[in-house]
């Protein structure tokens, strides 16, 4: 089990603003600042972060990665994990209450508040994943790779769930391999020499990608 304090997973305000379409260089109107502050107070009141981590061997992961046989023919993770020093399955959730709160706010027509809280929660889940990356193997460079991205088919979640059992921290999987609560992340932490994470984003599926997370990762190498 991995524990996160609420304070350590509070995201950078600028990251949240960015996901709301507010660029760093602009001056933010007071009513948006107030909205952010109120959303953050709701976030800290309703978030229940929990995580799980389980080390596995390269051999074990190679079976998990195959999943239901629906991965792209060639995908970066299949070149990275055989070179890893250590691997661990990982899952985290911010809990059901935060997702329910976002839905309730939308239903009450508090659209701006719901949207800001959603952005805070998403950025917070990413920050918690980054903390897990930093803490896994301090001597190596660790990145989290998740099913549903970079050619690793989302059905890979099923194999991760079989091995890790994130149901223990309240995460379940629906029949489309979607994690519930929504503000949850699962994947594999791959630790090793930083060079193993370096790949060119010219795979067939990269043209359709809208996340550009590999570029962010490259910047961190």
């Amino acid at each position, binding site marked *: 089990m991995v524990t996160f304090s609420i304070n350590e997973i509070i995201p950078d305000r600028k990251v949240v603003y960015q996901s709301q379409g507010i660029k760093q260089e602009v001056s933010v109107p007071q009513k948006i600042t107030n909205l952010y502050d109120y959303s953050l107070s709701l976030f800290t009141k309703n978030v229940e972060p929990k995580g799980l981590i389980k080390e596995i061997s390269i051999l074990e992961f190679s079976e998990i990665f195959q999943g239901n046989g629906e991965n792209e023919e060639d995908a970066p993770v299949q070149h990275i994990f055989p070179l890893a020093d250590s691997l661990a399955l990982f899952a985290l959730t911010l809990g059901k209450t935060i997702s329910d709160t*976002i839905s309730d706010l*939308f239903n009450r027509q508090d*659209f701006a508040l*719901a949207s800001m809280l959603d952005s805070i929660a998403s950025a917070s889940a990413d920050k918690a994943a980054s903390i897990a990356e930093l803490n896994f193997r301090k001597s190596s460079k660790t990145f989290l790779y998740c099913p549903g991205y970079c050619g690793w088919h989302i059905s890979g979640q099923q194999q991760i769930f079989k091995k890790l059992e994130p149901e223990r921290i309240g995460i379940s999987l*629906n029949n*489309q*391999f*979607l994690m*519930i609560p929504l503000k949850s992340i699962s994947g594999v932490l791959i630790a090793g020499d930083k060079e193993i994470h370096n790949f060119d984003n010219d795979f067939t599926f990269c043209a359709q990608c809208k996340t550009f997370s590999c570029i962010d990762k490259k910047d961190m190498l």
Partner: protein
Amino acid sequence: MDILQQISDQIDLGDDEKVHELTTTAIEQKIPVKKILDEGLLQGMNIVGQKFKEHKLFLPEVLMAAKAMNAGMELIKPLLLSDSIPMKAKVVIGTVRGDLHDIGKNLVGVMLKGAGFEIIDLGNDVTPEKFVETAKTEGAEFIGMSALLTTTMPVMKEVVDQIRKENLEEKIQTLIGGAAVSRSYAEEIGATAYCYDGSNAVEYLNSIV
């Protein structure tokens, strides 16, 4: 200042309480409800939409304005219905079967409502049958579908195929959007249009309605 202008201004400022108060006054003054809608509420949202397009407002401000507009809409909606005044068009929206991500779909709904469209929001995890049946029953001209996952995208095709099968392409158009979806996917499955966000959906529908 003209009360309709005040309603419009308060929408721009995102003050829902003020819009509620002013709309109540406008109704009491017997201003025709269509005029309140067009020259007060929709006018306000048009200005907001334009400012957003010109990067003079941010998304949270648009959403505050939408809440303010809804505060007025709730007051005039029963009057619009009793006077049989139609909205621009009816749009059935939902996140497709198996997918529970609804924030993007909700934002599209908010923006379309703000632009004067009637929205029937089916929520998330919506089956193809439910999309098509609702559009038929409600006489909706558009179905808007959202999917965040590559595994749930094929449900959009099921809806498009069902519409074709029932020869409803002339009556019901399909719009798709969401993180997993692209323009090329819309073309591939024969959806009418791909909309990358709420304001793009508004722009598209305004161009054809």
